[in-house]
């Protein structure tokens, strides 16, 4: 940096590709559309919108350092380090980041802030703004300033302290140019020693170097690297993991249940795209969770591509699980959870709003498209990163924990909007509800996930989840308890013969006459049921349960086979007799085969509806003897495109690389152009003006005024913003504004004005 650069564009040109890529990654708005060359890149970096975005990403420390650069004007890194009240190494790191974000560049005279930074730095001390005026130029040494301060009378010193403490600006009616010896009033005393400098129309200001001297040699009185600490308590890593893993398991289990339920009975989608309040409430009650949890679950499912809208049977839009669900349920719970949380981390959705009202008084619906927030992903990542910064087992203290996170985030991004506190609270609630945290501490597997190691996160979580069990405990009160998640095959069979009473890590089943009858309906025999129960139970089958099976089987009926178009059989002779003699049954061709069997000459598809009309409730036996059971179809929607694969990240990396290449070739083209010709495109002239503003070099512009008169003038550009060039015009010796679109050519002062486009 010893020699420095002529302009930011110059500096960018000298950077290696990696550094340029870093800039484009830190400030992605600069990369689209791809700038022509480094000149345009530098000019774009200085536009107000882009600057604001870049500044918003800075921490309070970085903003303080940037502020010090602005106050100091041209300065060396060494001086700067002493001026910021913080560890020198920390200041150096912050400065490095500012340079790599192109907010500060290294001119030949020293470090310079990018044009526009000074105006964009607004706010109070909490945003890293010291409120000091720029230092005078040439700047007196600190010793000189201190010597002048020492000469002051007590009233003058009091006045100076007062002005410094109240914005650094005051008005005075007295003379502005006096010699120290002539000074009659405290104000004149200060003015004569240049401890206050006049700013025209009676205004005086405290120059930067004086402010710094008054603040003990630093731009701020408070240390700038005082990172707020989180309020925590120690809960033990195992406890945290235990609670979090329990919740994680619940999340996966509940979501599967809900999506299965919605697959059979999809809730309708609102015209605005959301989920109706009534459906939300009903589903929450069905799933036995509260409404905010349900909103979070469905939002996460949607983010993971498991939920989407499709037309239901009637053609109306409805919320349906996507075809991704079928492969999702085959994965292990840990894998499923990791997938869900990845989606949640990247989702800008704010389910925390659901149930509340927007400013217009309209209720926020879950899954509604308006429910996204631009800063949500960043806030979520930062909140979790703050938690990840704690040692394992350390948790946020209840009560004070949340505000301390908000304070830390406010320090890390002081310029972000005020809604942050709400978003932090949502993140913590959601993380707890999804099992990312337990007892408000980050779970060990979530830590791995945040580090980007999905595979190890899955393994770590799987180790914490209950192992599948292959048996149940049968009890005399006709319940069966599976003391852990059942193997899926077993679970499916048990669900046929018994009702699920309580779900969780374990499952309680209850046998009822109806459930046993249902099993018989699906083709089980009493003997098979007894065998099954004896096989899965680790304890003797209780007598009442055996009795229940036998008693139900007794009333059910035994298997028969028919060889006609169709056969009808029932244990109830009277029922068959009734059918046989029913006046409307003549066309069915019924014939009694045995006391309890009828055959029919009519095929099944005709027979069945006719029998139902006659008030019978027949079930159909298939060729292999099983009974057909009508089950509502499980419906699926298509997985939205963006969820097929995770190419987005790769695409972004590739895009950055291609932008860098484009800039480089633009630079080569510019350098191979003969010097001085300066045939400038409109964007080229903007870049040239910005560069001139930064370097403070005069340029020759050709300007067409309101009357159509073309004049050529030499100006010192001050800033270019909003299509207006503010510059010191040599001809009128005044600061004037020029509409950029009226500037036809820009050229170096002293050289010939280049031909306009």
């Amino acid at each position, binding site marked *: 940096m010893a020699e420095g650069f002529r302009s930011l564009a110059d500096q960018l040109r000298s950077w290696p590709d990696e550094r340029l890529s870093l800039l484009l990654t830190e400030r992605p708005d600069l990369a689209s559309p791809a700038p022509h060359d480094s000149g345009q890149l530098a000019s774009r970096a200085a536009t107000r919108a882009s600057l604001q975005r870049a500044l918003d990403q800075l921490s309070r420390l970085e903003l303080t350092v940037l502020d010090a650069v602005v106050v100091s004007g041209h300065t060396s890194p060494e001086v700067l380090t002493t001026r910021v009240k913080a560890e020198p190494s920390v200041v150096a790191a912050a400065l490095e980041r500012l340079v790599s974000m192109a907010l500060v560049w290294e001119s030949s005279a020293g470090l310079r802030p990018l044009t526009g930074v000074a105006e964009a730095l607004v706010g109070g001390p909490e945003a890293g703004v010291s409120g000091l005026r720029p230092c005078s130029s040439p700047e007196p040494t600190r010793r000189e300033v201190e010597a002048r301060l020492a000469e002051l009378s007590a009233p003058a010193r009091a006045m100076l302290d007062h002005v410094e403490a109240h914005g650094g600006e005051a008005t005075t009616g007295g003379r502005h140019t006096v010699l120290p010896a002539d000074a009659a009033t405290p104000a004149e005393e200060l003015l004569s020693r240049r401890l206050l400098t006049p700013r025209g129309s009676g205004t005086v200001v405290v120059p930067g170097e004086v402010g710094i001297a008054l603040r003990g040699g630093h731009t701020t009185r408070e240390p700038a690297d005082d990172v707020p600490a989180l309020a925590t308590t120690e809960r033990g890593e195992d*406890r945290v*993991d*235990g*609670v*979090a*893993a*329990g*919740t*994680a*398991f*619940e999340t996966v289990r509940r979501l599967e249940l809900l999506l299965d339920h919605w697959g059979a009975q999809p809730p309708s989608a609102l015209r605005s795209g959301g989920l109706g309040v009534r459906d939300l409430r009903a589903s929450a009650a069905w799933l*036995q*969770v509260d409404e905010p*949890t349900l909103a979070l679950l469905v939002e996460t499912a949607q983010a993971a591509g498991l939920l989407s809208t499709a037309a239901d049977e009637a053609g109306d839009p409805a919320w349906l699980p996507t075809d991704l669900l079928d492969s999702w349920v085959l994965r292990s719970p840990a894998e499923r959870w990791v997938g869900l949380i990845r989606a949640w981390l990247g989702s800008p959705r704010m389910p925390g709003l659901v149930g509340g009202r927007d400013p217009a008084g309209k209720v926020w619906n879950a899954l509604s498209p308006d429910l996204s927030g631009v800063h949500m992903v960043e806030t979520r990542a930062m909140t979790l990163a703050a938690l990840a910064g704690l040692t394992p087992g350390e948790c946020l203290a209840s009560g004070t924990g949340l505000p301390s996170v908000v304070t830390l985030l406010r320090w890390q991004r002081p310029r972000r909007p005020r809604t942050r506190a709400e978003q932090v609270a949502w993140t913590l609630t959601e993380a*707890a*509800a999804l*099992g990312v945290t*337990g*007892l408000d501490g980050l779970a060990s597997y979530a830590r791995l996930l945040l580090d980007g190691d999905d595979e190890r996160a899955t393994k770590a979580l799987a*180790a*914490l*989840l*209950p*192992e599948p069990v292959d048996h149940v*405990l*049968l*009890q*005399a*009160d*006709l*319940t069966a*308890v599976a*003391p*852990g998640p059942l193997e899926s095959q077993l679970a499916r069979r048990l669900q046929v013969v018994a009702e699920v009473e*309580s*779900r*969780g*890590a*374990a499952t*309680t089943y209850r046998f009822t006459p109806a459930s046993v009858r249902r099993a018989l309906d699906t083709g089980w025999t009493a003997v098979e049921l007894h065998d099954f129960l004896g096989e899965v139970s680790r*304890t003797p089958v*209780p*007598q*009442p349960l055996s*009795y229940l099976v036998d008693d139900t089987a007794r*009333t059910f009926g035994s298997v028969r086979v028919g060889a006609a178009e169709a056969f009808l059989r029932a244990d109830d002779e009277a029922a068959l007799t009734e059918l046989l003699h029913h006046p409307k049954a003549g066309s069915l061709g019924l014939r009694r085969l045995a006391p309890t069997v009828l055959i029919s000459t009519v095929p099944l598809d005709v027979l069945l509806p006719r029998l139902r009309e006659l008030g019978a409730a027949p079930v159909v036996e298939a060729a292999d003897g099983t009974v057909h059971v009508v089950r509502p179809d499980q419906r699926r929607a298509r997985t939205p495109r963006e969820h097929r694969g995770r190419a987005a990240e790769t695409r972004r990396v590739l895009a950055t690389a291609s932008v860098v290449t484009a800039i480089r070739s633009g630079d080569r083209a510019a350098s191979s152009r003969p010097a001085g010709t300066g045939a400038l495109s409109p964007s080229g002239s903007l870049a040239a003006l910005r560069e001139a503003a930064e370097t403070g070099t005069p340029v020759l512009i050709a300007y067409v005024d309101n009357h159509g008169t073309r004049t050529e003038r030499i100006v010192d550009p001050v800033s270019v913003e909003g299509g207006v060039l503010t510059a010191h015009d040599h001809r009128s010796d005044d600061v004037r504004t020029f509409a950029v679109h009226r500037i036809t050519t820009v050229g170096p002062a002293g050289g010939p004005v280049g031909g306009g486009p």
Partner: protein
Amino acid sequence: MNDGPLIVQSDKTLLLEVDHERAADCRKAIAPFAELERSPEHVHTYRLTPLGLWNARAAGHDAEQVVDTLLDYSRYAVPHSLLVDVAETMARYGRLRLEKHPVHGLVLVSTDRPVLEEVLRAKKIKGMLGERIDDDTVAVHGSERGNLKQALLKLGWPAEDFAGYVDGEAHAISLDNSDWELRSYQREAAESFWHGGSGVVVLPCGAGKTLVGAAAMAHAQATTLILVTNTVSARQWKDELVRRTTLTEDEIGEYSGSVKEIRPVTIATYQVLTTRRGGVYKHLELLDARDWGLIVYDEVHLLPAPIFRMTADLQARRRIGLTATLVREDGREGDVFSLIGPKRYDAPWKDIESQGWIAPADCVEVRVTLPTDERLVYATAEPEERYRLASCTHQKLQVVRDLVAAHPGQPTLVIGQYIEQLDELAAALDAPVIKGETPVKERQRLFDAFRSGEIGLLVVSKVANFSIDLPSAEVAIQVSGSFGSRQEEAQRLGRLLRPKSEGKTAHFYTVVSRDTVDAEFAQNRQRFLAEQGYAYRIVDAEDLPA
């Protein structure tokens, strides 16, 4: 992974695997805050309810303890939402306190101003409160102490009552320990009640609740009003007190339909207190007849609604509730909590049984098949007639006869609901019958004869359900009941569970008609008994050994 005996389900049930080596410790640890819902042979189910958690808070447990216990014993990870819910629920108890104020008398004090504000805005509560004394304190009309507690519980902010009790008129009472001693759990129960101030002691039938009451009286050393379900039970209380304490017969009064004595210890029936003439409770003055130092409520789960209202006005007196179950068929468990007090002691039945204090029982359901003609009558009967028809079938007569014959020499009770059926049975079995219309004296005589072994078989209606000590009964045969009520089942089983000589097993038969509502109701009963952990079998009448 932790290999604990407990599985915490997200629906707030706790499954305890009883064969686990740490099951006993776990049971002890969770008993203060979780309510045992069912205790079949392998896995016991407990439930976390607000009342249960508040009971635990009242007993001095805090949320952290509860959460730690759950995490310690849980086999699997515990869902976070459940822990949050526990903490939030428990935090609601005690934010509001009823206290004595030197100037304003009774006041409601809050440690959490928003809660007080919320409560003050509740319509139901406005009328009970006086002026606001300062930001955190509001005066309470002295007469509304009980009503306020009831209303606050309904709002979900149960108040802790620190307003204290009157001592009452002193009266020397002590236990006469010459030939017996309090069982350990009885002593614990009485002591935890005394330390808690007021509250409910839950002990199974036959576990000696009367003695817990006597021990509480010995603690109080004051005049006592005892409220019981009926006259027979009142006499039993009196006998027991004369036998077990230093009280003499003259010190104990009976206040019932027939006798109206007011003595230092007075035993009154719920019925006489709730008798109204011309819309006015006639015997209300009993409550103020003396400066009672202690009020004992027997069978709290049966406490009639008017007594609740009267109890609301008795909040300055110590109250002990005795019961076998906190389950009320009318669901007014919350009123018991706020008006009598939190649960102070509870012991699972099976525990006491295994300590040998009550007899184990063998429960058998005998199914009879209705003959075709009765089925036809049943099928065409009005729905409200069906239960009576099914449960009064003549088929049951033979079964009862067989069952009685199968237990020769064992004192046997036949219990039923329908008087005709009971009369018929009594005639067929040649046994005396006790029903509602039987005079108290006659009842007393029959019960005494049964107790002494003079009579080996007794047919009783539901009058015998409550508080009548028939310790010698070894076999009970139930032929009909009131629609499968859980509470009735507990009471009837309780008849049999009194300590037996030589540790004999009691037998409890229920005779039901197959394929009728009778069998459906029997299923509730079966479930209740199996949930209580009793061996339960179903046999067909044809398979009974003749």
